[in-house]
């Protein structure tokens, strides 16, 4: 990376985490939540995506998901490995959040890669992505556990990421505003987690 460009790269990393990657995650979990209404409701909801012309959908996937996510993920791995975690010596709430943001990020690289392989790559090979496909995957209890941990990692990472996004851009400065942001992002974590876990359990 060229000299003195780090500030811009970091701000881009921060922005992409929320727009579009964070927004996509919220959309993705909402869509999956329709599974709670049963097989039919899920298949109808996901079937809507098929209405978008194939080439446009593919372009959207790359522009909204893969490229920003890959940038955020690979730069994120670099950031995560330059940290020297010290929660043992400084076991404050924020320091734990700092460490967890990095652990969940690393875990998400593995989880998202596996998840894309199991669903999107199979679709490219001609399989149909529908209720049955997910039901088959989570019929294996190990996979179900892996998915639940993956979903919780993602919701935590986004919620806590929103908190640090607000600081990184200088929106929350005072102690009080940062404290209130903690409560609000905690609520975001709880809501997204309930939605995500309820959705995956609906496939069981």
């Amino acid at each position, binding site marked *: 990376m060229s000299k003195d460009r780090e500030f811009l790269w970091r701000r881009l990393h921060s922005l992409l985490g929320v727009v579009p990657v964070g927004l996509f995650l919220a959309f993705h979990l909402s869509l999956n939540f329709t599974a709670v209404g049963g097989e039919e409701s899920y298949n109808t909801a996901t079937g809507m995506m098929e209405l978008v012309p194939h080439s446009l959908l593919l372009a959207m996937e790359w522009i909204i998901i893969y490229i920003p996510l890959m940038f955020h993920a690979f730069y994120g791995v670099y950031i995560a490995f330059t940290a020297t975690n010290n929660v043992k010596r*400084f076991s404050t709430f*924020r320091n734990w959040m*700092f460490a967890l943001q990095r652990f969940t990020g690393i875990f998400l690289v593995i989880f998202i890669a596996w998840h894309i392989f199991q669903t999107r790559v199979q679709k490219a090979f001609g399989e149909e992505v529908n209720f049955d496909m997910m039901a088959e995957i989570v019929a294996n209890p190990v996979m179900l556990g892996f998915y639940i941990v993956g979903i919780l990692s993602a919701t935590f990472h986004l919620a806590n990421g929103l908190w640090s996004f607000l600081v990184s851009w200088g929106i*929350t400065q005072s102690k009080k505003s940062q404290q209130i942001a903690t409560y609000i992002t905690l609520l975001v974590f709880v809501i997204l987690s309930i939605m995500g876990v309820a959705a995956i359990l609906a496939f069981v």
Partner: protein
Amino acid sequence: METVNTGRTVKLEIVRQDTENGSTRVEKFEVPYRPGMNVISALMHIQKYPVTAEGQNTTPVSWDMSCLEEVCGACSMVINGRPQQSCSALVDKLTQPIRLEPMKTFPVVRDLQVDRSRMFNALKKVKAWVPIDGTYDLGEGPRMPERKRQWAYELSKCMTCGVCMEACPNVSESASFMGPAPLSQVRLFNTHPTGAMNKDERLAAIMGDGGLANCGNSQNCVAACPKGIPLTTSIAALNRATTVQMFKNFFGSDHMVD
């Protein structure tokens, strides 16, 4: 003082290192207890009687110190896992054995002595001063409102002790981050009415590599600072200032102060 004999002793465990990048070892010491002792007085005893708890002769432990009243920052070290000043660390308040380690976020010169040059270089990089030199008398600067002066005084208490650097998970010898202390100094000097005349230069410096954006919000610095400096508020305030500066740099007619 030496004659006071309380019959009690203080147990210490000290991480020793003879040369830069050399190997480390732990040595145990037992020194006579005196009321009101601080860590430095225990180290001074070891300097006079360099004998380990096992009765082995050893070299005196080396450490840095100067003011002995928590204003110079030189004597900082990791005491029972927490970075702090050894001159104001009272033995009565510490659990024994008292473990002393150097602040390894800096290069260790010897034993508990570290080289804090990185912090001083960062202060130079961000121009942590008010430039007033000229070829002629520049006259009086603008007045600083008293309330602002009182507030800025809190930021000026920084003694470059390095404790916040040791506490920060993103500051290390293998990372380029300049750390919390130099950043907060940018806020201080950008607040000063004369200093503010160069605020864009300081913001440009912290927007460079190893600058502000490396902060990951662990907020350890503010918890560790012995002077109670609101480091994380400074960082968030600078985040806002640099956000504005970033847009000014791109969309503005020039890169100057206003």
